[in-house]
């Protein structure tokens, strides 16, 4: 498999919405 690692996730809001089976990314997080 390909793997999206944590370096590439930095400064993004990463949302795991298991109930609705979706994953979200929002830029400029951590503020």
């Amino acid at each position, binding site marked *: *498999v*390909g*793997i*999206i*690692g*944590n*370096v*590439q*996730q*930095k*400064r*993004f*809001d*990463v*949302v*795991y*919405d*298991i*109930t609705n*089976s*979706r*994953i*979200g*990314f*929002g*830029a*400029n*997080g*951590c503020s």
Partner: protein
Amino acid sequence: GRETESRHVVSVRSLLPGSVCSSPRDSNPFMLKVVHRHGPCSPLTPGQKPDYTELLSQDQARVNWLHHWISTSSNQKSTRASLAANIPASSGGSIGTGNYVVNVGFGTPTKEFTVVFDTGSDLTWIQCSPCRSCYPQQQQLFDPSRSSTYSNISCNSPKCSQLDSSSCLAGRCRYEVDYGDKSQSEGFFGSDTLTLTPSDVLPNFLFGCGDQNKGLFGQAAGLLGLGRQPVSLVSQLKSKYGGVFSYCLPSTSSSSGYLKLGGGAPSNVNFTPMRASSSQPSFYFLDLVAIEVGGKQLPISQTVFSNAGTLLDSGTVITRLPPSAYAALRSRFRQLMTMYKMAPPQSILDTCYDFTGNDTVSVPTVALVFGGGATLNVDFTGILYVFNMSQACLAFAGNDDASD
């Protein structure tokens, strides 16, 4: 720095990690503070300065472990038993090498522990006393006999059968988690109050009270499992938090991010479908469909990605791509970086640059495009892995095999 559609332009100085924690002490009371395990904000006492080459070597070991685990996961229980035998200790991966840690409280009265958080595994565990074999950790061991709310789980409880690997001792359920490098946590399966934040106090949380633990966990007290299986933190708290959690990993080791259970998503979040796999029930899969470099999409067939599949992991450091996808990314990136002198490769990273003598650097943007149109425009700090000014490397790597 400045950003255009095709390039990031930043000060060279900003590439290097700070030596002082810039994160405010008082964090948001509704979120767990996430910090890099080796940075100045970490509650763990720094030991030796991290050897980045060693960290990347451990990262490859984790990826080897994930590949092996997934390729043989049709029978998980037998696979777990065979993993330690099949993968040499030197190349096996530990799920515990995750780089980010959070503080959580166990028991009543609550005691605080620093644990690595990991979306690639399920069971939460901490080292407990009395301990038969524990590695050194920063905080005192958790002593369940001193917690008024701790309970053992009996062998015949349905909760015991949620474990991938369990055994019975004097009527008490024991768990065992074996990792590919022979890292291990073993102990009694119990429940106690878990305090995530002052407003998130969770009674009867199931976790492992480890009394035989070894591996690459550093000084952390244990691990917070955020995978998809029923025993994970997320699954246990699904009814309370609606099956939603989120995190943000800080851009530098001298700043902090957050881990939050429940709640709504920020308005700028774009979603992509999550792909669940019944044969690989711990992991979060998604559809990577394209990669853009410098604002232009690379010529990669979608089947290159769909044949391999893609998972999202908080514990793997460097993104791994199918070989042909990585070759295309590397080729375009190098074309757009010809103004800089190349530097020798480092560990798993083969596209490195020497920025010595530059005040600013201009680096092409990189975007990962997912099914449904969600795009992750990789932050500048996620494009280069900077060892020092004379060696900054493209922070992506290729898998060995197209079917990996």
